[in-house]
């Protein structure tokens, strides 16, 4: 690695079910301009742009980076488009950081977005594929059996998922950018209709319109701000969709991705050495599952951390301080929002959902059939 990489600018839109007030270029410009302002930079200072979004069909535009180039001031510059399913926001940030670390560019703007109101993601995710049974069930229908399997294996308390929903929504109340601002009690969450057992309506993420952007720079330019977030580790891992030997409840790709970033950052005990984490939890039960997969809890004990309140703001291992995907889910941007929120924590700019004295934070995203993983570790120390 030729260079160190730091996050010096972060921006995001207010996320809503439908941002009819802005076009797609308008949406990404809000996030990009905010990130540039934060970094004390302008479009002309940017060397290259890396953009990520989930399937093009969600917006009905093929390779939207072509049409969005103008809005990002990309003329005459390299613009690069990443797409790795639900993990795309994370993978996009990883590619952007690699351009800096490899010494290819000094100042990179990275952007991720989704304008889900342009279509219906649930049905876009339920296509009829030749020679395969049609799974007309959206993402929840795919993941519900994995959660049932987790509950059986771990003998988990049945309220765990609802506790995650209550906690993440309480966190989301502190985040003015979050889509959902719901002050929900455990009783209210439990009373919601069951969609895909064990996932109630109240335990699912919303469909959001939104964008997020970050400015990543090398050592020389990190001085522009007093509080850069240093990228201390990045990793991606993939495993096959169809393979009898894989464990979709606790995927090996996720374990290896986590081990890789911890090794790079010199972390041997994630629970004690990491101050907080933003992890990709689109359905409530993924919190305990990922706590185990990422090594914050021993296998079978993730649900206890949640039930004991250890993942709340103010407790010893705050998870999804921003409210997470459970409050805000512009799919293509959701991964980068996790990465950006981790960076906000170590920069000390997370406002009302700031973890006191956070120095080391994890950003995590996953996609496909729990098979694509992207992570980074950011730190206030170089």
């Amino acid at each position: 690695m030729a260079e160190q990489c730091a996050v010096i600018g972060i921006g995001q839109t207010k996320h809503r079910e439908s941002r009819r007030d802005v076009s797609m270029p308008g949406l990404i410009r809000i996030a990009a301009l905010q990130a540039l302002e934060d970094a004390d930079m302008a479009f002309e200072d940017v060397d290259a742009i890396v953009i990520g979004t989930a399937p093009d069909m969600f917006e009905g535009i093929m390779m939207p980076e072509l049409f969005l180039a103008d809005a990002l001031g990309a003329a005459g510059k390299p613009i690069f488009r990443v797409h790795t399913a639900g993990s795309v926001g994370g993978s996009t940030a990883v590619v952007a950081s690699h351009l800096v670390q490899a010494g290819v560019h000094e100042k990179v703007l990275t952007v991720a977005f989704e304008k889900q109101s342009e279509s219906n993601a649930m049905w876009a995710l339920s296509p009829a594929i030749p020679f395969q049974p049609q799974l007309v069930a959206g993402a929840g229908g795919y993941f519900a059996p994995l959660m049932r399997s987790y509950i059986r294996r771990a003998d988990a308390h049945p309220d765990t998922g609802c506790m995650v929903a209550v906690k993440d929504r309480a966190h989301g109340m502190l985040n003015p950018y979050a889509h959902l601002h719901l002050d929900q009690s455990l009783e209210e969450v439990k009373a919601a209709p069951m969609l895909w057992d064990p996932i109630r309506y109240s335990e699912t993420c919303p469909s959001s319109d939104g964008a997020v952007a970050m400015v990543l720079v090398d050592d020389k330019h990190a001085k522009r701000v007093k509080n850069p977030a240093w990228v201390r580790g990045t990793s991606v891992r993939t495993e096959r969709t169809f393979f009898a030997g894989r464990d979709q409840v606790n995927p090996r790709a996720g374990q290896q991705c986590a081990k890789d970033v911890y090794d790079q950052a010199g972390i041997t005990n994630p629970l004690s050495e990491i101050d907080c984490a933003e992890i990709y939890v689109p359905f409530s039960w993924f919190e305990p599952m990922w706590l185990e997969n990422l090594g914050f809890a021993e296998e079978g004990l993730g649900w206890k951390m949640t039930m004991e309140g250890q993942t709340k703001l103010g407790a010893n291992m705050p998870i999804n301080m921003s409210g997470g995907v459970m409050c805000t889910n512009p799919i293509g941007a959701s991964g980068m929002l996790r990465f950006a929120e981790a960076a906000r924590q170590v920069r000390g700019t997370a406002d009302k959902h700031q973890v006191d004295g956070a120095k080391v934070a994890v950003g995590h995203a996953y996609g496909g059939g729990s098979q694509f993983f992207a992570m980074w570790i950011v730190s206030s120390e170089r």
Partner: protein
Amino acid sequence: MRNVAIVSFAQLPSVRVSHATDEAELVQPVTSQAMNQVGINQDDIGFTCSGSTDYLPGRPFSFVAAVDGLKAWPPIRESHVEMDGAFALYEAWVRLLHGDIDTALVFSFGKCSLAPVPDVLNLQNDPYYVQPLGLDSISAAALQAQALIDSGKATERDFAEVAVRNRKNALANPNAQIKGNFSVDELLKEPYLSSPLRKSFCPPLSDSAAAIVLAAGDAAKKLTKRPAWIRGIDHRTEPHSLGQRDLTSSPSAKLAAEKAGVGDGKVDLAELHAPFAHQELILREALGLADDVSINPSGGALAANSLMTAGLIRFGEAASHVLAGKADRAVAHTTNGVCLQHNLIAVLEGE
């Protein structure tokens, strides 16, 4: 900066319809062939990256199925771009610069037989102001070709000469789809598809897949006698709106060529991703290629044009000449978007 090279290349022959091949069946043969050529397998690969588009099969996440064509177990470091496979090669090149891994597998696949491609490509246009007009890719390219004629830079005869040469070159390429000895006068008698473009000035629709293995430093030398070293590589874009561009030139290709160092030495051959005949003329000028440069010895995109793969195949074809010792310095080019909006250029050298 670390030296990275192309060490092997494999492709499926481009055909109009590749029946009943799904993503995994396209990907598995080419990736294993590319790895076999240098005696390695997936376990030896440090990073894997692919390029494809969901708009050909018409379903979201089609690239996910391609992973099933790989031996992705134990889990692999992997990424995907919704761009031509040549851009996946660019991401893999960046990844290898880190120094912790030495090899990368790059692949792409595209089946034009699954979709009405010229109409689908209208979806690359601005969704608010242009898409509703139904500007298919042939009509858009025709606007560019007419602008070129109006500027006095080229004539329809020049377009025909480009088409004739490419398809003649393709006679020596077993993987090409459209090949033969055509005459310029014969082509100029074809009816217009979209004036001034005739059928032969437009690319065929092809199904194909391709794979390339990249290796860095000593690892490259161990895998092959004469690696095709990537001496320079760069990509640039232009404003999206056709009205904001001078369609008769390609400033983004010119800039990318400068950054990649195309003009720093004698170029033996260039593989240009010019789906339409007139675009080759624009690119030659933008890259500043001398008259003695062999252009598209493979026949180029006019002989075989599998969307998302045609660009990676340009890189592979250019590298093949260097790997075989038939060229010392080759240029590879890929384009993306309507009327050459986005261009990627690399210089490959033998020593």
